[in-house]
């Protein structure tokens, strides 16, 4: 069966040379420290300064970066990831000479594009042409050079018809295209980029992807700050994870991406916030948790990692025909599947005496798509005793992974595509 596989990369750029240790450095950062003074009471007028001369001295010191050291080689595509407030944007601003470091040293080779975000230098009152010239000069080109490149920039952005239009009349998509073209044309050696890749419509995105690969092939050094793990894995040679102003992980992008997701979800999960039990009583869920391969409790699972569910139930009244069941639901509350087991004593009797504690162990394959999931837990009698206990959202956990999947589960499958011999051109 013929399958239409969209080409996602320009073929030539696929084989960009990978920078090796020993290649010349483009950026060298040693022991970078940066802290901010957050005034507990901000004094922003002279009047206040006069009335309360010492108010400004009350401040909290926020340590944004605490000793960051790394090297980026020439031609390297280097990713920086981290949670909000981890210091990654501060780092980028230090590299871009927007902030001044408290301590440490930054050294750089080649010409740096002084932007960390697209289109910041744009003046909405000016036409596209005027803005391109202004931006070019900001990037360190001479006005003459910029004017020579003007047409190429406008062409790349596909904005020929609108070049004399003021930017305030542009759509946001057009703005982004223009900004991106300006950056591409600046011809800087080192580029610092803060989350900009997912811009424009599909065809422009494709163009950007090609352009990025072309820049990679041309030996440009690029430092990219992003939340998008897929971007990091697609483009970056190396990636660095920053957490609380420290480097937590540096190296392989895929590994860094996984570490980042783990970090992200560890903190996002509330624990000990179980819904109160419902049911007629007779059994009580004491605890419910997930274990990792080493038997440690966890609230996060990597995509594909087996689900090791544990639950502890105390039987309060003698129960016959007791059955423990679980429902696995996704973040939308949709029940994905259920599973359960009857409880028997060691002698094979289904009459469980009061006071017994039951430990349930369930090991499941994990076809779940990345995201948050919930487990509801119930205990009931198969002999008409009704529901002893039901706890909605007894447990919630997060499946993390860098696979993007449409759908709620991914199922093992075989698929192949072949060309039909008689239809070959």
């Amino acid at each position: 069966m013929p399958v239409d596989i969209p080409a996602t990369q320009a073929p030539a750029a696929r084989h960009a040379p990978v920078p090796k240790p020993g290649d010349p450095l483009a950026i060298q950062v040693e022991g970078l420290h940066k802290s901010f003074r957050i005034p507990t009471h901000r004094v922003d007028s002279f009047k206040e300064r006069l009335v309360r001369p010492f108010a400004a001295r009350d401040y909290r010191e926020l340590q944004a970066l605490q000793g960051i050291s790394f090297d980026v080689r020439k031609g390297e595509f280097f990713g920086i990831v981290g949670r909000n407030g981890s210091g990654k944007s501060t780092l980028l601003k230090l590299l871009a000479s927007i902030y001044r470091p408290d301590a440490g040293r930054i050294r750089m080779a080649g010409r740096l594009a002084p932007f960390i975000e697209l289109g910041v230098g744009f003046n909405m009152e000016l036409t596209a042409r005027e803005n391109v010239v202004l931006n070019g000069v900001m990037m360190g080109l001479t006005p003459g050079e910029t004017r020579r490149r003007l047409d190429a920039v406008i062409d790349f952005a596909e904005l020929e018809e609108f070049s004399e239009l003021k930017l305030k009349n542009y759509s946001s998509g057009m703005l982004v295209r223009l900004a991106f073209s300006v950056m591409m044309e600046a011809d800087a050696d080192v580029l610092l980029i803060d989350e900009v890749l997912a811009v424009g419509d599909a065809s422009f995105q494709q163009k950007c992807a090609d352009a990025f690969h072309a820049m990679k092939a041309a030996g440009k050094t690029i430092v990219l700050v992003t939340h998008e793990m897929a971007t990091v894995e697609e483009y970056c040679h190396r990636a660095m994870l920053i957490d609380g102003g420290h480097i937590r992980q540096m190296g392989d992008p895929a590994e860094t991406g996984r570490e980042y997701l783990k970090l992200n979800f560890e903190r996002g999960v509330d624990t000990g916030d179980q819904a109160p039990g419902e049911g007629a009583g007779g059994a009580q869920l004491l605890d419910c948790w997930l274990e990792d391969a080493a038997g440690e409790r966890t609230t996060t699972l990597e995509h594909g990692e087996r689900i090791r569910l544990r639950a502890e139930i105390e039987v309060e009244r003698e129960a016959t025909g007791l059955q423990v069941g679980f429902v696995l639901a996704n973040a939308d509350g949709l029940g994905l599947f259920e599973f359960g087991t009857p409880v028997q004593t060691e002698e094979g009797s289904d009459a469980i005496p009061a006071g017994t504690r039951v430990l349930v162990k369930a090991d499941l394959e994990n076809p779940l798509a990345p995201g948050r999931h919930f487990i509801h837990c119930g205990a009931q009698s198969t002999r008409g005793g009704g529901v002893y206990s039901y706890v909605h959202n007894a447990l919630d956990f997060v499946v993390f992974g860098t696979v993007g999947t449409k759908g709620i589960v991914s199922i093992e499958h075989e698929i192949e595509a072949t060309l039909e011999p008689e239809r070959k051109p």
Partner: protein
Amino acid sequence: MTTTTPDAGLRDVNGPSALGGGRRRFFDLLWLMSVTEFRRTYFGTVFGYLWSLVRPLMLFGVLLFVFTQVFKVGSGLDDYPVLLLLGIVQFTFFQEATTAALTSVVAQEGVVRKTQFPRLVIPLATVLTSFFNFCLNLAIVLVFILAWGVEPMWTWLLFPVAVAALFVLTATVSMILSVLFVRFRDVAIIWTVLAQVLFYATPILYPLGLVGEEEFLSQRIEHLLMLNPLAVIFEQVRVWMLEPSAPTAAEAAGGALHLLPAVVIYLGVCAFAVWIFNREAPRIAEDL
């Protein structure tokens, strides 16, 4: 780290500064920004430039009426209308430039916080834009002066010196205001009042050196006024451009030596501007 790392070609990155990123880029940006803004403001719309003339001309009309018909301050002086016009055009430049520069750094927040941009360009470009407008206005005033019947004099050649002095003062005051406004937002209000005070503390409405019947200010007050660098400049412009017989700044001050305080104040403003701008420039992005 590998020991064979060739780190040749690495240069220190020193963080943001007033001039940051090379002298050529600084001047390119300054020129381009001020010219673009000037074109946009004064030639973008039909009445663009004419519009900018309306304000000083209206002020001139009103003041001319009030001070020749109501208060009779200027009626003793033949050249009063041209003197008034020249003074208003000069002061309008000073006031408009400083007021625009005051908010300029804050208004360009995006550029300051997200790009490595030489900080000094921002207030200076605003001043330069106003200066281009000032030059156009001066051309009109010159036509007016000639039409009024003032004979061209060799001292007209000295006028650029006075304009340069006014430009430097305007630029340095703008530098101070623009960085102070980042931290203290009531600077805007304070400056509105202060500029008003300066307007009256400069001999624009009232000519100096009138005696006898026409005497308007006592000698003492005229001496005091000469503490104001703007007053010194304006008075000297009057002598050079319109009335060689009018008291020079030195005469109004009561002797050349008495001009010293004004000179010290002038240089003090310049030095303070350079010092505070250099001190604040690296921190602007954080304080915004």
